[in-house]
């Protein structure tokens, strides 16, 4: 099994979510969005061999004069692990000066990497590069990535052995495209500058494309393609208070809940949302809710039913054990893939279908 495929999720680290301004939204325009501490972005990439989407959850920890710090959690399959999953976590710092001027973009983070790469950003371009693309239609860049050719040749430990090569070349503006992202659980279409080109190192060429948010005031990579792999931001959850139920509905999606891929393990980034849910239940002592787990359509029916049930139970247990919510007020249900709310044909659609809902419909 090619370990590298799963590592690909980690490429979408800080670079995809750094910046300090708002995100413009079009469809279902929610409040304008600012990239700020506490913001969580979920990135996804599809493993076409296993037909499974793998997610990485990135949390902005701080933004100051030094730069932007972010934490990322993700999981990769590991047959040797007791539960079949190996947990990964990383902390990254993108220095402020690199956000301004760097021409190097690091798409791949490897075990043993330092916290920061001086002179480099993540998948998001520096302001210099972004402005150059907008003004001149192209920019020369360097992209640090693990070549799929190398990693595939080296088999199961290819990720550990294949080093990060630096591909050089020019990317040109190919036009503007829309990228659909769930912002606070609401499908939102964001306008992106689409750039691409063939970067090379020696005889190794890489078709490389980026979709950068078309907003000079904010740096945000929404999606990129490197060789045959695609990574995309599928969810952005802002650190804010949310009302879980509208006046007209007794059912609500619950944004801000994150699980390890293919696991019922809640990630730390879920705590603010769980805390808000617990507070809501405290404020409405007459409410009883059902936590419903839902999945996308990858994997078998039985697997998805089981996973969705376990995820709902996991959230319930958190409410009970950490926040003292009485068990009688929380029920659970797992619906697997049976109640999609979006298409299962796209990364972002499947991300939408992988969700938790709460219901107090009785």
């Amino acid at each position, binding site marked *: 099994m090619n370990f590298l495929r799963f590592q690909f999720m*980690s490429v979408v680290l800080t670079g995809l979510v750094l910046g300090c301004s708002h995100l413009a939204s079009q469809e279902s325009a929610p409040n304008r969005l600012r990239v700020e501490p506490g913001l969580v972005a979920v990135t996804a990439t599809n493993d076409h061999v296993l037909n499974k989407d793998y997610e990485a959850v990135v949390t902005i920890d701080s933004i100051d004069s*030094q730069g932007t710090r972010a934490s990322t959690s993700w999981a990769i399959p590991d047959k040797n692990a007791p539960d079949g999953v190996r947990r*990964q*976590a*990383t*902390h*990254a*710092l993108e*220095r402020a000066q690199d956000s301004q001027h760097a021409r*190097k973009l690091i798409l791949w*983070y*490897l*075990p*043993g*990497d*330092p*916290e*920061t*790469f*001086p002179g480099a950003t993540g998948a998001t371009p520096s302001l210099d590069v972004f402005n150059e693309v907008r003004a001149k239609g192209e920019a020369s860049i*360097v992209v*640090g990535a*693990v070549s*799929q*050719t*190398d990693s*595939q*040749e*080296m*088999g*199961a*430990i*290819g990720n*550990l*052995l*294949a*080093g*990060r*090569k*630096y*591909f*050089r070349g020019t990317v040109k503006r190919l036009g503007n495209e829309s990228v659909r992202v769930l912002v606070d659980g609401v499908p939102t279409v964001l306008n992106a500058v689409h750039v691409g080109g063939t970067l090379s*190192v*020696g*005889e*190794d060429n890489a078709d490389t494309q980026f979709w950068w948010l078309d907003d000079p005031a904010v740096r945000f990579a929404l999606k990129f393609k490197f060789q045959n792999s695609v990574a995309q931001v599928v969810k952005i959850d802002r650190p804010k208070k949310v009302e879980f139920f509208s006046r007209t509905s007794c059912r609500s999606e619950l944004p801000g809940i994150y699980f390890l891929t293919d696991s019922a393990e809640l990630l730390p980034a879920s705590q603010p949302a769980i805390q808000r849910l617990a507070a809501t239940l405290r404020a409405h002592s007459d409410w009883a809710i059902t936590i419903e787990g839902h999945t996308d359509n990858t994997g078998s029916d039985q697997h998805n039913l089981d996973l969705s049930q376990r995820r709902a139970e996991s959230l319930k247990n958190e409410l009970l054990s950490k926040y003292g919510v009485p068990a009688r007020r929380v029920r659970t249900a797992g619906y697997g893939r049976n109640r999609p709310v979006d298409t299962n044909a796209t990364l972002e659609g499947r991300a939408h279908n992988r969700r938790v809902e709460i219901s107090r419909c009785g």
Partner: protein
Amino acid sequence: MRKPRILLTLAILITVVLVACNKKREGAAGENGSSGNNPGNKSGQYAGGGRHASEHDPCSLLEARDVEAVTGPLAGPPFRTKEGLDDPVPTEDGDACVYQTPDFRTIIVSITWTDGATALRMLKMPSAMTSGTSGTAETAEDAKRAARKLLLNGVEIDGDWDEASTFGCCEIYALRGDSLINFDFRGWGPDSKRAVTILNTALPRLEHPLSANGNAGNDAALKRAALRPQPRSVCALLSRAEVESVLGKLAADPHPSSKDPNQDCVYRFTQAESKESTLKDAPAGFKSFVGALTGGRTGLVQGAVDTAITIKWRGGFRQLSDSGMVAGAVMANYDGMPGLPKRTQGKVEGGPWDEATQNGLGFIAVKKDVAVMIDSEPMLSQEQVELRRKLVAKLIAKL
């Protein structure tokens, strides 16, 4: 010391890779009926390491004048040698290029033209294997250190590399694209900033190497090598009378400690008592450690003692760098000193040597790339250390 460790690591990893590759290919064939899912046809490229070994001349990144701009005049044109040799002798089609000054200091450049990213990855493998995750700093101090630029010989350095790793005071592995330069200036000197200016000249040329023929410098280098002090019996370098004029009456004839008389010579003499300690400038933690051992006394070593002079006839400047690193690592245990010491620490001026240093392991002086070392344990007093340096000075004059 470095190369064997790397080679061992590489050998192990290459074995693992080959096993993994074979397994994968077998698996792919079994599952899919063919091995067509494995792109590329580079199988075996990691096994021999020779596929790209001579793609370009290793001297094609730096002209003599590029180096001379930093080091001053070179002794001759650059020449080729084999990477990893203690004594970088001229070697036809060698995979490393040597830039040599008139006093036999050297800067050695070797290049992995392709698959350099993998090579660097292997060099970093120990930390990669142990950390498990990327960018996870163990402590706040680790995080701060990681945020800094590459630290070498006590100074921050910045270069035109994409990634780099350092070893000891004076060796950089710099990756650009998929090519890796091993820039080894252990045999030159400790000025990292100036050394890196040479490396920075070389790095962009990885994409467009100069036309060069490093072999053309080999003959001249061979002739220069003949002018170097030739290995001979260490005990024969100084007469007994000459030694006794420094150390006092010897209790026995000087004799080598091993079968190789060219390697060292042991002198037995009576050491006088001394009150002053060589530890006066040592880190507090180390003084405390020694004090505990000696009951607070210093200059302990007295009476009949053996002292040995060891000579490394080739690669003396590199030995100087390496010994400082080892000594630094020892001292760091007592001082909490982060990282490795500067090569300039303990530098001793004013002798007949080209460069000399005193560190926790002893005194080492280098002349024409010949290293002369004498032990001087921490318990020795300053006078006792000076005595040994005098003996080294006398011996160096005879080289």
